[in-house]
Each structure stands twice: as C-alpha cells, then as structure tokens.
C-alpha cells in the first residue's frame, strides 16, 4: 500500500555514487568522507613577512555554485574573484578560501589559507552546516513551486523539532 523513499539533493555530492541503493548508508558516507577529508586534509606552510601561513586542502561535497556563493556571502565572505573557468576565491577575516573543480558536475575542492594557529577545521564545519541548510531552503522553494505547477495541493506544512520541513500533499 505504500513505500518510503530516501533521496539526496543533487547539490550535495560525495563518494555516494558507488554506494547508491544501500539503505540508510548513502548520506552518512558523504559526510563521513567529508569528515575524513577534514582529518586527512593536506597541510602546507609558507613564511611570509615573518608570519607562518598555513594552506589546507579539503574535498568538499559542495556541487551547487549558486548555493555555495550564497552561503559564503551569508557567512561574511568578501572580495570574491574568479579563478579560471570553474574556480573562485573569497576572503573572511584572516581566512582566504580558494575553490576549484574540473567541471560543473563535480564537487569543489577547497583550499583555506590562514595564519598558523587559526582553526580551519571549525571554519569548514560551520560552512558545511550552513551550506546544507541552504540546500534545504532551496529544495523547499523549488518543491512548493513545482507542486503548484502540477496542481498538487499542500494539505499541511510543519517544522519538526530537528528543523525538518514536513509537507503533506494530496494527490489525485
């Protein structure tokens, strides 16, 4: 009589593709990999004007450039500049973020440049949470518009305790 379906927004991508179809695993894998990416990030250091500067490299699950830019602006980033065909950089306080990728379907690789002692991992954690919430918001806007276009009526809408948005929709 009914089924339950789990899906992930295309705005988020990880090593999930190879694991599609395994119940309840896919999303964990994305962020487990992302957390591993934080732990395994590549770090290098250069000394500039007697200040040691750290460069850390991460593989992110961020795919949607518009949502990423929105997230960075809301996070307080400024001085955006384009790097090559698919990349860009921006700055916030003592951090410089450099994003790059080979094509628009791939998630961004991210480099953070900061002074020694700055907490890059916390910065990327915050950014990741904010990006995911913007994905939820974007999905909500898209979904409600498309339901309307398909003459599907939203019977009720609720925000649950964990900030999940629950829509009950009448279908023909």
């Amino acid at each position: 009589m009914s089924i339950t379906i789990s899906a992930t927004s295309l705005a988020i991508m990880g090593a999930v593709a190879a694991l599609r179809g395994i119940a309840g695993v896919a999303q964990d894998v994305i962020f487990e990999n992302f957390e591993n990416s934080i732990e395994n990030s590549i770090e290098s250091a250069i000394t500039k004007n007697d200040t040691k500067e750290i460069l850390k490299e991460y593989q992110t699950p961020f795919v949607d450039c518009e949502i990423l830019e929105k997230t960075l602006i809301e996070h307080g980033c400024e001085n955006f500049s384009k790097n090559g065909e698919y990349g860009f950089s921006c700055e916030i306080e003592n951090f410089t973020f450099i994003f790059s990728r080979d094509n628009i379907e791939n998630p961004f690789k991210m480099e953070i440049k900061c002074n020694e002692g700055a907490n890059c991992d916390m910065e990327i954690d915050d950014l990741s949470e904010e990006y995911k919430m913007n994905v939820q918001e974007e999905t909500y806007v898209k979904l409600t518009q498309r339901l309307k276009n398909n003459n599907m009526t939203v019977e009720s809408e609720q925000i649950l305790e964990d900030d999940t948005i629950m829509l009950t929709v009448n279908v023909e």
Partner: protein
Amino acid sequence: MAKKIQIKLKPDGTIEMETKGIKGKACLNYIDLLAKLTDSRIDNYEYTQEYYENEVNENTVNNCENG
C-alpha cells in the same frame, strides 16, 4: 483512504517521502516524481508492511478470479 504523499526535507539536505493510501505498484511512480520535484537522486526505497499485505490480497483475488 485519500491518496497522499508526505515529504520531509531534512536540514542535512536529504529528503524522505512516504506514500499513503496508494495501492500496490502505483506507489512506485512516486519514486521518479520525488527525484524530479526536488532535483535529487534516489538513495533507497523500501516497501512498508502495508504494501506486502496489499500485494498478497491482490494476488489472492486474481487467483480466485482466474480459477
């Protein structure tokens, strides 16, 4: 029972949907619909116990009618 779908948009970017009151294999049509409505990829779907109960009932009816 009225036909409904319940869609949950989670703050981590994942989406869950449950069909209610939609009999038998017709509920499978909603897998593609969810992907299209939300620009998402389907990670998994599971039949609820109700689905199997309904399938058994339908098969029993079909067997009786054919017999």
